């Protein structure tokens, strides 16, 4: 194992060296960092040119410059990185520019990845379980279309319909009957083809889904929810109980009464804590407080699970911990939405869903404000990034799960008389998710470098803008800074993918 790791790390280092050499020399040959100065009419033009040549060593050929750059980059090994200066950013050290840029890109990529995993894997499982249904065919067709969509085109569309039109709707929320009808129809059709069954069952499913979704939208519209969206204690109770039932159904099956009881008790604890928490949220609006509470949420779930669990302590603890965390999450959302009316007053006229940048410049406010502001800026770029990944994960999960469902051990599990839930979740899913896990690890590395276009369109000051600026103005050090981060992350995640595969699947050995 250790020799494998060392050998892989050696190969990685070599690969990184060669790749950085290629990128450096190509960028240096293809760029002219003096272009802006040559065109300038400043009286001290010649001094400026001489100064820039001096700080960037432009009198040396690119190959030599690469080795001086490499000398600085090698100091990263002793934690004193020197990736040169970026002249396009006022001779700021590249490491500083990277630190701020990487932060916002990682935020973006993390959000997109989490959403893509949740949505993509779920849809993939549903399509695999309902193979050859109308739902399956439509999703397959949709994934084909998504694969063919240029991401910048999607992003422009999102800006128009996700931001501008949606903001117009939020400014004057008026739910039309047409919208209610369409929402009802879509959810009816989706649920009908998902649940299947005879025509009578299908009609009943369609009807109830139609009434539920359309009715919910109508209700939200009538009560003016879109003008001042809140969750409230009623919302917390409803989502908490829903999460308890849903998570238990998937995690242990509803027949496991103790697990259900444990999760319902955690929901009750959170509801009891709802009003005291508001004081805490008001007086201590700090990030670490939220982190601590999140850990506490999981802890509460585990403790309740152990106390109530009886014979199945572990299952009950697991279920209750998940439910507890979801309930806590809803309470946080509820608190954030509390500042919504105030937030709408303070931001620019353009509307709630922002299309530019990662923050509203000059916005003053406490943590809840900042969370809401960050979220409103994160929505659209995240969707744009996640859409393609969702399509990919859907296809992967579907094919992987279908492959597993045809295995003999799944047939054995069925033959033993296990419930469909146990067969799918315990026997099939665990094995089907092994390749997905490695693909996702692989994908994260690629996504960080691939966010360039999305960041450009949404004017997000991340790694992408670093790269585009550097390349446009011939700032080699900036491009190299981008490459070092994305390249290193790409190889590391590659390695993680390999190790993950061997860790999850004992049949595979690494060497």
């Amino acid at each position, binding site marked *: 194992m250790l020799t494998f790791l060392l050998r892989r790390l050696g190969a990685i280092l070599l690969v990184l060296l060669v790749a950085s050499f290629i990128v450096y020399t190509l960028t240096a040959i293809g760029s002219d960092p003096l272009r802006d100065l040559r065109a300038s009419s400043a009286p001290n033009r010649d001094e400026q040119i001489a100064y820039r040549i001096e700080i960037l060593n432009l009198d040396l050929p690119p190959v030599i410059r690469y080795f001086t750059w490499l000398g600085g980059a090698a100091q990263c090994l002793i934690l004193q990185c020197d990736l040169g200066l970026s002249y396009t950013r006022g001779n700021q050290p590249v490491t500083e520019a990277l630190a701020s840029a990487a932060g916002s890109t990682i935020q973006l990529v993390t959000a997109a990845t989490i959403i893509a995993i949740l949505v993509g894997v779920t849809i993939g499982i549903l399509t695999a379980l309902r193979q050859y249904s109308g739902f399956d065919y439509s999703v397959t067709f949709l994934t084909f279309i998504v694969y063919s969509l*240029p991401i910048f085109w999607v992003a422009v569309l999102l800006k*128009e319909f996700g931001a501008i039109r949606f903001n117009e709707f939020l400014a004057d929320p008026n739910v039309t009957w047409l919208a209610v009808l369409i929402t009802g129809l879509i959810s009816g059709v989706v649920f009908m083809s998902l649940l299947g069954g005879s025509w009578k069952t299908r009609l009943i499913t369609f009807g109830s889904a139609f009434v539920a979704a359309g009715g919910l939208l109508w209700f939200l519209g009538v009560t003016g929810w879109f003008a001042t969206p809140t969750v409230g204690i009623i919302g917390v109770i409803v989502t908490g109980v829903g999460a308890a039932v849903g998570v238990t159904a998937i995690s242990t099956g509803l027949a496991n009464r103790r697990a259900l009881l444990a999760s319902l008790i955690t929901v009750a604890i959170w509801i009891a804590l709802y009003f005291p928490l508001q004081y805490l949220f008001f007086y201590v609006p700090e990030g670490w407080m939220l982190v601590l509470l999140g850990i506490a949420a999981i802890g509460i779930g585990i403790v309740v699970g152990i106390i109530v669990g009886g014979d199945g302590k572990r299952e009950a603890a697991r279920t209750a911990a998940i439910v507890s965390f979801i309930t806590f999450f809803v309470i946080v959302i509820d608190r954030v939405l509390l500042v919504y009316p105030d937030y709408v007053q303070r931001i620019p006229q353009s509307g709630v869903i922002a299309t530019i940048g990662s923050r509203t410049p000059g916005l003053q406010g406490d943590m809840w404000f900042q969370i809401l502001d960050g979220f409103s800026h994160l929505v659209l770029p995240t969707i744009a990034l996640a859409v393609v990944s969702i399509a990919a994960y859907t296809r992967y999960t579907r*094919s992987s799960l279908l492959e597993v469902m045809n295995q003999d051990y799944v047939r054995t599990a069925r033959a033993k008389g296990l419930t469909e839930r146990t067969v799918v979740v315990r026997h099939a899913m665990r094995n089907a998710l092994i*390749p997905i896990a490695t693909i996702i690890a692989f994908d994260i590395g690629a996504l960080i470098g691939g966010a360039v276009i999305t960041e450009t369109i949404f004017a997000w000051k991340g790694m992408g803008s670093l790269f585009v600026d550097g390349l446009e103005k011939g700032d080699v050090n900036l491009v190299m800074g981008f*490459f070092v981060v994305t390249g290193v992350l790409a190889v590391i995640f590659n390695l993680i993918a390999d190790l993950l595969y061997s860790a999850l699947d004992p049949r595979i050995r690494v060497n």
Partner: protein
Amino acid sequence: MATSLPTDAPQDRGSEQTIEQKAVAGMSQGALVRRRFFRHKLAMTALIVLVLIILLAFTSVGTVIGGTGSLQADASGTLTINGWRIEGWWPLNWWTAYPVVNGGAPTITWWPFSLGEHPFGQDTLGKDVFAQVMRGTQQSITVMFLVGLVSLVVGVSLGAVSGYFRGWSDSLIMRFTDVIIIIPIIVLGSIMGKLFGGNAFVFGLFLGILSWTGLARLVRGDFLSLREREFVDAARVAGASNARIIFRHILPNAVGVIIVNTTLLMSAAVLTEAALSFLGFGIQYPDVSLGQIISEYREAFRTRPWLFWWPGLFIILLALCINFIGDGLRDAFDPRQQAKTSRRKAARAVAAIPSVQAVTMVEGPTSESDEPYSDEFTDLGGRSGPPGGRGDRPGDQP
């Protein structure tokens, strides 16, 4: 597609023969693949649409071959393009600014169908969007085919050498592949576009030089497993040279993977070219590309949406057609993919035939009829070569 597989050729297996096998008795592998592909409705539709788009793009506005592509004005002030210009049937070209008609709105009407003066509208300067989009589509098609061709040649040869000879050449080639892979294609593509951009031909060549990595890995994986098969041993014993074994014995068996992945690469190339041109690092002014048009007018979505819809539509059409063709090819090449019908439908169809009422459905092909889509994507990490493939052979057991 000279595929004559000794192993998969239908043989008389007597009573074991299924209905499907009887239906294909006496056909070569190539004929089987062709037949399966032609029966794939979606893929055939996509193929027809693609051919129509190619014809439309190249015949309508004509094209320019060679030259620098820069614009020059003659004495009367009309702009001409440098290079050998072939005129098409559409009277307007993509670089001249025409008088703006009707605010630049599209003049196309569907019923009764008429193109009008500027079917896709005009931009702010009065340039004909139809001509621009057609020219952009030409560029995308050129880039697409070049990328396919170049990566096919490079990827297959490197993958074949690496997988067949193994040893140091394998490690060297695979490390080189890693080098290209870890540089995001957008980085190298932008640099290439900046250095050699402006010309779709050169741009496509260079993009192809960067896009072969996934293909090389897949071909290597295929070669690694195929070279251990008995028919390769037989060929070697018969005295076949390495080149003959590679080209006549192994390559025909890997052709499915190669063709399918090349098509997928081509659809990715359309999107990459558009994205790079969108960022300003691809095909550059005065030439046009679809991504460039969208980039130029992305702020004008509210006022002139047609500048946004038409180029986008053609990018999507191109990529979608290629993706569907790739899907059809995959179904055609994968022998596990016998019938993409549901079990219920198949059972109903069989039950409807009076003579086979007594015959129960053959479980084999339909129960695992859904073929995993895994090979649509590039290498799944270590999946292509888990241990056991070679160790499972009876000869290795003590």
